[in-house]
């Protein structure tokens, strides 16, 4: 290594080290300003929460008599957009849609084009 950075290159070592330090400090400051929320698609360990948004902690015996709330746990800490996610048709099952004219004219009992109030 010393030979690689021999006399011919020694004038570059100090600027290179400074550049590296600056790069690291830039990355650290950028990271602090915009902490990664997605964690590259991997959820880190997290606290589960009850319906009131309070932490349920089995180690510290906090609120351990209550079921967890997926909405409060996954959706309120800024990690996931619960409202957007639940607009998907798997969640709405047609509740957010009206039957089209043809469907409505044929099926008097149909309230939506999906499973919620839909046809068989």
């Amino acid at each position, binding site marked *: 290594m010393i030979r690689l950075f021999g006399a011919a290159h020694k004038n570059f070592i100090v600027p290179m080290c400074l550049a590296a330090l600056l790069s690291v400090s830039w990355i650290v400051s950028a990271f602090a300003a915009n902490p990664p929320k997605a964690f590259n698609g*991997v959820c880190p360990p997290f606290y589960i929460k009850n319906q009131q948004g309070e932490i349920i*902690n089995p180690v510290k015996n906090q609120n351990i008599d209550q079921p967890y709330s*997926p909405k409060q746990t996954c959706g309120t800490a800024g990690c996931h957009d619960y409202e957007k996610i639940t*607009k*998907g048709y798997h969640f709405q099952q047609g509740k957010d849609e009206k039957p089209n004219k043809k469907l409505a004219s*044929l099926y008097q009992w149909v309230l939506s084009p999906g499973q919620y109030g839909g046809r068989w």
Partner: protein
Amino acid sequence: MAKKENTSGRDIDLTSFEFVTSCGVCHPGGGSLEYDRNGNRYDRFAADTKSGITSGGDNKFDGDYYKARWAETGVLEADCLMCHMPGYNMNSRNKQLSMLNFQWAATAGAVLASVKGEVKKNEKPAVQYNGEKFDAEGRLNVPMIKKVPTENCLFCHLETDWKKKGTSYSHRFDVHLRAGMKCVECHPAGTSARDQRINSKEEHNFGKGDDPGALVRDDLDNTMITCEECHGKGLNRAPLMKHASFTDGSFEVHQEKIAYQTCHVPQKAVKAALVQDSTVVNPQPRVPGLKRIWSFYGPDVKPWNYYGEVEFAKNKDKPWFFYTPQLRSYKGKLYSVNSLYSVWYGLKTAGKSGLDQVFMQDIWGLWSNVADYPLLAGITDDNSDGFKEANRAEEIDAAIDSMTAYLKKAGKLNKSQKIVLVKGNEMYVSGKEKVTLEKQPYEYSAYGSTFKLSHDIAPAGAALGASGCADCHRKDAPFFTRPVMTDPFGADGKIKWTPAHKMLNYTEDDLKQQTQER
């Protein structure tokens, strides 16, 4: 599903509350299982004294709150882990629903805790968390995965796609599953989606096809990954299509007129329901609840105790049954489909278009009191297949008259309404008077769904055409000439058939042209 506003309990069949226990066994929560039709969260609205909701009360016959107990059960929020957690216990989750422990279901399903006690028995469920699922700080630390595992999709689709489409979802019959692909490879969502209509962060509208039998979010039809994207362009490192047997250069013509699935789903290995009759109740073992009103017939037009088989054999052990799927023309292309032929009681209201239907509970109510309706004894099993059916004029009259009498007695039939019996696209006003209803060419009736078959894809070597033109175009080729059912029980009790080409509205000249020697 009951309307939001009703004037009496007689107008109500399935409420939003009952939707949770019956349909919630598949639906992942959120949306219709969390909010009422005015946008209020069910449990909070019910618990608010200003709302005037009484637990278990009539609640002004509100279809969202009639006899409901939301304040005690809580709601079903969208359960992220149901899809994103390998090893999620769907049975455990659904057991909570049957006990009316709605807000405890997600905890039990993810096996984060044991839950004891039932709201149904007026108990307050007790929770005991499983310490193994948490780290030393008390944070949840369980396996999760962004791309939903196939097993989790199949919690719901394994059964529902059995009856509708005869989908096996097995490695034996599906080349894509055998290749280790997940459902979400073809049905992506979020930033994995290629169609801009569904491509955005956290978007949970999955890429979908265009099924004539599924009408939810039709604006998102054809957002899934197509056959061409993988096998034409090499997406996902798929093998590129060759179609080497089309030596006459006719591949493009086929491509224009026939869907890929039609050739690559040449045979089915699991039954789908071809006929659903809810006018005559036939005793069948192991069928739960009101599902007993349905008599299903398989692709061979023989009685099929579908729900009994589900209970008996369970979803993963679907019995094999080999048959050739139906063909129908949809939007200018030929598809392999399962088209359902339905037989049911309709309610025709004077001055109103279309039809209403009789509640399941009333069909069961009628057939549970056969002694009170002696005409029903005249409905017999004319074709000795094991199921009784209303096929003769006098049997159709017996069915219509008995149901009319039952509903009148129950105060559920007003003067402007008349009971009819709908069989395929024929609406019987009486045994001797019928009206032919409009329908699309791909369906038996506007009241029977047609489902395209796009799973259980056979390998290239097993596809139609792999052995050359003669697979479909030889003289008397079954592709065009095989019999297709048009009536499961005619007036003489016999099954009526027609050749496949007639079902597709091909003329005899068309047939000659298609089946000449090549």
